[in-house]
């Protein structure tokens, strides 16, 4: 990232503070409007093929004690971020939360990390600058890549060239917090396989799936971090690789797919930058539970609620998803990725994935 970007990010933040200043001077009640971040307020952007926020806005206003506290915290955070950018340092979201304890004003201190995370998101949206450009990092997510990919990473200790099969151990290449510091040098990969669970990722690596099928195995580690989604999107855009997502067969896993493909509700302002709308879902599909006669668990009440709420989620309102979700509600069952082991340890690499990928036209 260049010094110009840093300078611009800083100016954006200070403009925001200036906006409050002007509101005071005009005798107005200081306020700040941000899009409402709920699933009722996301809409499909046809041009960019991603889900973005709609027109509904929430106003943080000093009209109430609570609103005034929020704005006070915002101003303190702005000061902190501006200083950090000036000094060209970075910090994690969690550090921001703890750091607020050191602020002289008790009213400005955060009461939970959710609060500080939300505030940083607010600032991202209002200023139009991403968190990464504020030099705010999330905690290390530990997501990895394994596969035939050659890249160069800009680290604090200089440049490193890494091949994600040859230069890494069993664990694979660890995705850095800001994947925009990576430059892709070359790849023999045919497609990307994003995997939800660590157990399945290890199985695929042990069975040599990446080598056999020229796959880039991206470990999502549950709900993927922004960096994971960003690098997936870049791999897709820059190396023109198809993206496939392989998760458990339950509603929570469909949301993992959703955030890779359509963007998450909380970061819909960055969908354009993070989402890969072309990503395809491999499974476990509810249909697979029947077809492969997989061991399953009954759906819990919260699973059913989650499925029903997905039926109302605009991101899942496609024929494919409606059919799958309704089928699962009928079945009343869910299965994990690793339930495929019921048919032998090699079943997933020898049979299931080749069959599914074939059906999807990836292989």
């Amino acid at each position, binding site marked *: 990232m260049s010094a110009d970007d840093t300078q611009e990010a800083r100016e954006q933040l200070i403009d925001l503070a200036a906006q409050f200043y002007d509101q005071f001077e005009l*005798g107005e009640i200081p306020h700040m409007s941000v899009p409402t971040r709920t699933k009722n307020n996301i809409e499909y952007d046809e041009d960019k093929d991603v889900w973005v926020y709609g027109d509904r806005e929430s106003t943080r206003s000093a009209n109430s004690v609570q609103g005034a*506290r929020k704005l006070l915290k915002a101003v*303190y955070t702005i000061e902190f971020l501006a200083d950090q950018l000036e000094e060209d340092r970075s910090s994690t979201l969690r550090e921001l939360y703890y750091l607020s304890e050191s602020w002289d004003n008790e009213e400005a201190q955060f009461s939970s990390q959710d609060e500080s995370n939300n505030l940083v998101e607010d600032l991202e949206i209002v200023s139009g600058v991403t968190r990464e450009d504020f030099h705010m990092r999330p905690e290390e997510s530990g997501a990895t890549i394994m596969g035939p990919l050659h890249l160069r990473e800009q680290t604090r200790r200089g440049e490193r060239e890494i091949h994600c099969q040859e230069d890494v151990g069993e664990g694979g290449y660890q995705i850095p917090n800001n994947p925009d510091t990576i430059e892709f040098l070359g790849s023999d990969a045919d497609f990307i396989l994003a995997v939800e669970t660590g157990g399945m990722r290890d199985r695929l690596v042990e069975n040599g799936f990446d080598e056999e099928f020229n796959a880039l195995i991206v470990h999502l580690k549950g709900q993927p971090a922004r960096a994971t989604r960003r690098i997936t999107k870049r791999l897709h855009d820059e190396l023109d690789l198809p993206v496939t997502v392989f998760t458990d067969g339950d509603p929570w896993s469909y949301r993992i797919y959703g955030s890779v493909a359509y963007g998450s509700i909380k970061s819909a302002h960055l969908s354009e930058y993070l989402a890969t709308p072309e990503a395809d879902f491999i499974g476990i599909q509810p249909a697979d539970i029947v077809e492969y006669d997989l061991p399953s668990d009954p759906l819990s009440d919260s699973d059913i609620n989650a499925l029903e709420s997905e039926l109302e989620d605009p991101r899942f309102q496609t024929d494919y998803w409606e059919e799958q979700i309704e089928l699962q509600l009928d079945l009343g069952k869910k299965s994990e990725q690793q339930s495929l082991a019921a048919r032998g340890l090699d079943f997933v690499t020898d049979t299931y994935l080749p069959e599914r990928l074939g059906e999807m036209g990836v292989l």
Partner: protein
Amino acid sequence: MTSFQSTLGDEPGIAEELAESQQSISIAEFFEKNKHMLGFDSGARGLVTAVKEAVDNALDAAEESGILPDIYVEIEEAGDYYRLIVEDNGPGLTKESLPKVFGKLLYGSRFHAREQSRGQQGIGISAAVLYSQLTSGKPAKITSRTQGSEEAEYFELIIDTDDNEPEISVEETTTWDRPHGTRIELEMEANMRARQQLHDYIKHTAVVNPHARLELREPQEHFKFERATDQLPAETEEIRPHPHGVELGTVMKMLTATDSQTVSGFVQEEFTRVGKKTADSIIDEFRDRHYGREMRWRPPASHENVDLHAAVEDATANKGAEATAAFAQSIADGVDDYDRIAYHELLETVESAAEAVEDDHGTTFGDTVRENAVEAVWLELIDAVETESVDDGGADDESRLVADLYDLADEATSTRKDDETIHAFADRLGAAFGDELAAGDDEGNVRHRLTRTRLRAFVDRAADLTEEYDDVSFGETARENVTDAIWDVMATVPDDPPLVRELNGDRDATSDLVDAMRATDIMAPPTRCLSPISEDLITAGLEKEFDADFYASATRDAGVSGGDPFIVEAGIAYGGDLPAEGSGEVMRFANRVPLVYQRGACATTDVVKSIGWRNYGLDQPGGSGLPNGPVVIMVHVASTNVPFTSESKDAVANVPEIEDEIELAIREAARDLKSYLNKRRSMQQRRKKQNVLGKILPEMAEKVAEVTDRDEPDIDDAIARIMNNVLVERNVEANGDGRAVSVVVENNSGTNENLEITDIVSAEPTALSDGATVVEMDGEWFVKWEPEVPSDDEAALEYEVPDDATFDLDVKGVESEKLTVNQ
């Protein structure tokens, strides 16, 4: 002790023997043994009661003579006894009446008067004298001086309990420094354990008698309660009894005593709120009860085979064809003019027809002719002509009466009853009317005159038979409805009511009269016999004795209970120095007298406890009972006859009418309390919000200035907006040699605001804008401006001053929490 069993008859003289030991008891003796009934049950209580009786008497006496009461109470220890001295500045008592007032029980001026006063029975003060002589053996010492007399009278007396008469031991004249008044000194066995009640009594008396000056000196403490007003309570007038509140015995007594000849005169003379019209209504009600009403039947319709004309002609003999025809026609037409006609109405019709025909034709229609005509027509009307008598009424297709009754009954009963049932019922009821012809004395009740009770008996019998034979139910409601429907069409008879002397001694007729009076709508009794404290003075009284934040009061319109008018008033004091812990205080008053004992037995307390105080913003554990917190609730019941639970007058009895009014009065005052508390609460929240925001916003402004590297912004306007405040801001601009000043009021609140703004200027302001006035005082100019500023609007005051002027702005009319002033 050995007991001998004796049987009646063994000792023939037993009744006589017993009779020898039976003798009448004097009232004084009775109360000597039953002190508790008068509130003298213990030494502690006896002292309070004695003070209470003496003070009540003193207040009554002074007020009656239009004197602002000034009362001094002293209690001192006197050896084994306590000495109570009560002095007032009343009119004093004459030498003749004084011994009786103090030395005879049940001697008083008020027992018979329907007028609000503290004392009622004439027992109180003499009971205190009695108690004193019983416990200390010492006489009461009384000094009294009437206005204008040179010297005061001094008496020492006791009550001779055998015959309830004063026994005077000392009688002399003396000097006294008061120009007029009475002083009583009693020694009694007592103690000061009820000190709190004593204090309460005096304090509460001061609350409800803001026109009185009270002083209490007791061994430990000394209080003075000064007047809050110089206005005496409105003078009350005695009223006559109200017809709704008298009992049979009373009316019988009044009948014996009255000078009136007629009932109409009697009720107008002896009762309040009875004029000619009301008297007539009462008499009508009396007639209905005493004589009954006469049934009115429908005149024959054209399709009916009833020829009244012919019936009259047949009954009239030797009067000439023309005159007879005219007579018959006149009667037939007259009857036809009625929707329904009763016997006495028919009589009138025949009379007037006879008069008219006599005038026109010169033929005399004597009594016999008239009677014959009446009978002929009436029998036709009630379908009782000999040929078709009721006995073989079945031969006729249907009796007229049955058809008439059927329509009435059908109208009055529910639609679920089928026609046949109603018809059978009407048939039986008609037969009952028919039977009246034969019943009773020789003539029978041909007029169909029935009291409501008798009518109801008819209906019941017909209904019972219908139930029995037709196997249908004919319930209470249906019977009542039918009775009502028939009773409504029946006519009150014109018979003259009996004269008073006839009524006198006739218990049943008098009872009918009492019932009639109760049934008549009569205006509530006048309230000039009552003297409510008034809302303003209740508030003044509470303000005087309680240092609270809020006061509310309510005076209800007069109500009536048992013929006695009454007025209920309530007052509430809240907050301030009242104790915040524990339950609130209830002060009860009856005719301006505090009630200090038997709180739990009092209707007032019951009502206070039954109110859901949480609705009014007070804390009430469990949702019932006395409210908690810094609150004083006072209730005053004023009546010509307050219903007490006992002679000691400690508690108001649970009379529903009075309880209802107590509740309404308390609720009225409590509503004011509620809005005060709500407002206070919202002000508290506002203050809290203001405190927090007052801290956060300047810090935010400071930080914003720091981040943007600018001077700190001015945040007052923003704060005024946030707080929905009223912002008053002064702008001063140079204007030639002087300066132009504008004071702008910006109303950010949700309501219209009326402000009173005073700007104190050190030099004379000129070119004042409209609506403002200026007054000069000691070299300062007071610019007064009272704008009304609508919500979200602003108004400006403008003027010009010389260069060196200074200003000082004072804003009123807006709560300080809502106000931001920038000078």
